[in-house]
């Protein structure tokens, strides 16, 4: 994990600040940093999004492929997650250095989406037991400045929102052989319902309080954090303690409550933004990576 060296004096400064609900960059304990979202940034994908959260930058690309449904769930398609920690983010990720963090992140994403309501997997089925859509969700970390989980989950939600899966029709000939036909019209495509896609909130325990969206400096002062993925309705789909320390049961209950509140409040503005961007259509000004 990308880390920074923080001296004892700096730690004390950060700790005392958080105790008085004042963070180094002037935020309150439950505020996010300035966030920018842009969808449809990579033309070769079926859906993509770039999210910058402070200095953390994440790019998500989704590709839909035809695959075979899993034998246990013949009527459903599935999602595959892969997180790549590029050496651009920090030199520590060079070679196989980022692999450990990458598997940790992708395993958490599998857990977050391991329920029936997040994505309607049945709509990804083409013919039961034979063909289905597999959505490959590839996450690329471009810059790391803390709070990777939240940035990734927002980017995935935005990318799923913008995903356009081409419509296919199944035709069977006289002998019963099935054939998949792709629609000729490129605008004839299926959209996913992302209403129930959860967002992850990471709460860092610093001193006796917890902060949302911690920077690397703040993270260096905390011993343990709790990640909670919350849907729009406030249901928790995944909760996990990360970091080397332990937490008091009471503070876990407090953090769950705060996480649910913050997570629930995150969805409405995000959906608004995504729909606004969608409405702009082709007139939209593309910002790209240098904006």
């Amino acid at each position, binding site marked *: 994990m990308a880390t920074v060296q923080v001296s004892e004096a700096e730690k004390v400064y950060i700790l005392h600040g958080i105790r008085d609900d004042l963070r180094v960059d002037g935020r309150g304990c439950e505020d996010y940093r300035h966030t920018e979202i842009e969808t449809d940034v990579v033309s070769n994908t079926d859906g993509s999004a770039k999210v910058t959260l402070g200095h953390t930058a994440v790019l998500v690309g989704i590709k839909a492929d035809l695959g075979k449904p899993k*034998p*246990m769930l013949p009527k459903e398609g599935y999602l595959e997650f892969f997180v790549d920690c590029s050496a651009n983010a920090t030199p520590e990720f060079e070679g196989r250095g980022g692999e450990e963090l990458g*598997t*940790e992140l*992708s*395993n958490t994403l599998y*857990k*977050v989406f*391991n*329920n*029936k*309501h997040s994505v309607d997997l049945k709509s990804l089925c083409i013919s039961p037991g034979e063909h289905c859509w597999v959505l490959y969700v590839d996450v690329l970390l471009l810059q790391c400045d803390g709070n990777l989980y939240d940035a990734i989950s927002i980017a995935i939600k935005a990318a799923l929102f913008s995903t356009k899966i081409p419509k296919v029709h199944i035709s069977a000939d006289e002998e019963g052989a099935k054939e998949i036909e792709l629609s000729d019209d490129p605008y004839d495509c299926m959209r996913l319902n992302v209403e129930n896609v959860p967002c992850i909130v990471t709460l860092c325990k610093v001193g006796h309080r917890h902060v949302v969206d911690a920077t690397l400096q703040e993270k260096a002062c905390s011993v*343990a954090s*709790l990640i909670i993925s919350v*849907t729009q309705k*406030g*249901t*928790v*789909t*995944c*909760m*996990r*303690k*990360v*970091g*080397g*320390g*332990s*937490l*008091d*049961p009471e503070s*876990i*209950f407090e953090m*769950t*409550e705060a996480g*649910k509140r913050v997570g629930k409040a995150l969805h409405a503005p995000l959906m608004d933004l995504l729909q606004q961007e969608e409405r702009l259509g082709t007139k939209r000004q593309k910002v790209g990576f240098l904006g």
Partner: protein
Amino acid sequence: MPTDTKRVRGPEVSQSPLLFVSKPATALPSHGPRTDGRPRDQVDVRPVFVRCGLVSQAKGSAYIEAGNTKLMSCVYGPRETERKDETDMKCGRLTTDMRFAPFSCPERGSWIQGSQDKDLSLMLHESLQPAVCLHKYPRSQIEVNVMVLENSGSVLAHAVTCASLALADAGIEMYDLVLGCAVRQDGSSYVVDPTYKEENSCSSASSENQGGLTVAFLPSLNQISGLQSDGEMTEETLTAGVRTCIEGCYKIYPVIQQALAKAVRRAAPPPSES
């Protein structure tokens, strides 16, 4: 190319025939007593059998059996660290490795560590690390290996208990033992220490409020060192689930203490009275 007519070419990928058996009774009843006779909605963990010091080559080892879930854990070290490039040499390093034997689950697994095993290893590491006094072991590493011999549910919870027992048996200085407990929420009712079938049955009519939760708990410090949940649950259910898990941990605490005391007594028998 001449084809070998004597050899029957099988398909490249194969599935277990058990997957295609028509199963009308997969949906476990969501009320009434559980299949193994334990009541629902009560903190009733399976009786556990634990024993320390089974592997003579290891510094410490432990074996745990809860129902049909069987695990063993070995601890090697502290020894000099392999990686010299670590910047922080003041603290020791704890490495964990959790593996499933290929025959441990209904479907055969491979010997190669999959991503699920890696994830469980990481969870085990995060659960154990707060309990070990790593600052007492500078420039050294402690290896914890867990092997799942038979998977009959709640593997991670029992792995945590087993590994902490092995660490204690190895004489590694610790702040506290780490105990694990799992809960499965199924609609409005919950089951403690679920079996493999209960863990994987998701056919209940109400798909709201369904999920699993595993907690690692330090009993004498009253701290939670590991927490993991999946599925869909409301905040209230989660909070109640965490409390249930803590209660479940306290249930197995005396058994673990007794096993440890027994191991210590056997290693250094008290001086005879005469």
